[in-house]
């Protein structure tokens, strides 16, 4: 187990490093200059001084200096937002995205798993068909359409919830629902196919033959193996929900990290771009690792192979 963990950590570190390098190459290959961008222009001497101060006059040097800073969790200054460091920006935006992302994933699991189990138990009945229809609609609706419809329904027509903004619990409801919908659909579908496979296996037949209550067979014996594909999906999905909710954040005006990815890239703000990418890929690697660990813990066959 320890060896496995070390190997995974090492591979994850290599992946993050490669992602960083690739992003760096793209950042320097693309034309544009953070110091001469739109309204935000500085004098040539100032630019020279700034470049020298932050080791940006030499790409190779900047590459290593940024990495050295990042190792100490210091991503340096931004070049677009005066008086803000990358750490402050990421530090203020990331918790917002993490909160919404985790709530959305919890919602998705809590609705998707029972839905999938229910559909698998009632295969080929109207329950199963409506579940499939729900899944297909869930993955076909763009989040900005869902979000806008929810705003029109709950905020404009019924005046139940605030339209936008950030601060209270009521601001969380709609973004979480919108973000959770496609994930719920995927999880329900994965649970259904997983549960359906498991229910046709011998040990389930044995459990039924011993006279156990169907509820107990499904929820105690079959659920664990049936959830394996879901667990595998949760890793990348959580990372995506945490940081990839750009669209949902824009629909509801949530001050999350998504806007900074877009703005940093548009402004060629090298430091913020690299910092955000490092955070993103680290989260992705971490959640993939957690999912793999959970996978191993659930499945005794894999556990023994270690």
């Amino acid at each position: 187990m320890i060896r496995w963990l070390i190997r995974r950590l090492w591979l994850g570190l290599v992946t993050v490093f490669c992602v960083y390098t690739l992003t760096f190459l793209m950042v320097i290959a693309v034309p544009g200059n953070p110091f001469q961008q739109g309204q935000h222009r500085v004098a040539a001497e100032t630019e020279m001084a700034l470049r020298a101060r932050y080791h940006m006059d030499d790409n190779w040097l900047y590459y290593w200096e940024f990495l050295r800073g990042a190792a100490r969790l210091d991503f340096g200054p931004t070049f677009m937002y005066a008086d803000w460091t990358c750490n402050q920006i990421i530090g203020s935006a990331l918790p917002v995205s993490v909160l919404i992302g985790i709530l959305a994933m919890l919602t998705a699991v809590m609705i998707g798993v029972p839905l999938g189990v229910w559909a698998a138990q009632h295969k080929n009945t109207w329950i199963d068909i409506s579940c499939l229809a729900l899944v297909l609609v869930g993955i076909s609706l763009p989040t900005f359409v869902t979000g806008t419809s929810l705003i029109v329904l709950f905020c404009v027509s019924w005046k139940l919830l605030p339209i936008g903004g950030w601060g209270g619990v009521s601001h969380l409801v709609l973004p979480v629902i919108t973000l959770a919908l496609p994930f719920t659909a995927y999880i329900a579908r994965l649970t259904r196919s997983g549960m359906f496979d498991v229910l046709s296996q011998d040990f389930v037949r044995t459990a039924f033959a011993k006279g156990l209550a169907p509820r107990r067979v499904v929820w105690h014996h079959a659920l664990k193996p049936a959830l394996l594909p879901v667990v595998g999906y949760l890793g990348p999905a959580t990372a995506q929900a945490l940081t990839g909710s750009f669209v949902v954040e824009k629909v509801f005006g949530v001050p999350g990290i998504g806007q900074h990815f877009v703005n940093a890239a548009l402004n060629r703000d090298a430091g913020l771009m690299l910092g955000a990418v490092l955070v993103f890929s680290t989260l992705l690697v971490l959640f993939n690792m957690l999912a793999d660990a959970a996978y191993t813990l659930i499945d005794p066959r894999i556990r023994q192979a270690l």
Partner: protein
Amino acid sequence: MPDRVSQLGGRGREPRRNRAVAASVTFLALLTALSAAALPFASDWHDVQSLDRAVRHPPSFQPVVSPEVFDRAERRPGEARSEERAPHGLKNIAFHLTSLLGHDDLGRSLMFRLLPAYLISAGIGLAAAGIAMVVGVLWGMTAGLIGGRTDLIMMRVVDVLYGLPYILMVILLRVGLTPPLSTLFHGNSPIANVVVLFVAIGSVSWLTMARVVRGQVLSLKESGFVESARVSGASTWRILRRHVLPNLVATSLTYALLVVPQAILQESFLSYLGIGIQQPTPSLGRLAADGVEAVNTFVGFWWLLVFPCGLLVITLLALNIVGDALREWFDPKSRAATLL
């Protein structure tokens, strides 16, 4: 309950499902035919503005804009005014449809923006599927067949590309590729814009395909018939051609079909964030995003929201229904790996 659980037969769901698949295929075919038929007009008419009377005009059966306005848009600069005033034939029919879905904030006919938008979105979806089909299958097959260190490195590359934040990559690709492409297409920026999106969406669309194909190849390599072919002295090339490739066709085609709605959805997200298709070129995502922005609490321009979003959602739904049915047909035990 146990008898329900042991009910393994695949009836019940099938007929209804077949009906849904048939309806989806019909819808997609009709829409494609319609937008292809309208293309000769739509390519000129999609940007015809009429700021005097048609601005945000609600849907009506009577055309709001006079035929001359469209006529003017079709003439190249310096070309003489055509003799006949009233449109005739197909053009007449097309003209009578111009106000059927209303007009947008510049008085452009929503109908003749939606039809080419469908074609552009479908083109982006198909291009992404094509890239997934070629690059993804080759990549996954090579990794799976060679195995060992090569496999490890090739799959690491896929992991790294997965780890790149997509939005950032798209913006950087756009910024980097637009100037050279614009000169390549002689300053025709709409074409350059669409090509950049092809590249950006295609560059990630093949990743899942590569993983799926690699897994398939690995399990094929272990299968009895490949082993017996090897034992009976077949060359690697022959095994690949006669035993591995035919077994990959069904899976890869199915996954390629599922890439199409994903790519269309991606494009709509990018357009919503303002980094996808640029005005005046229409795409389903661009129009849906414009419709979403037209929503306000005071005046409802409902047609700007309902028609583009409706068309986008129904198209995605139809594609997903067909792809999902195919997947289950070819690969009933699939763990829906496509969803990752």
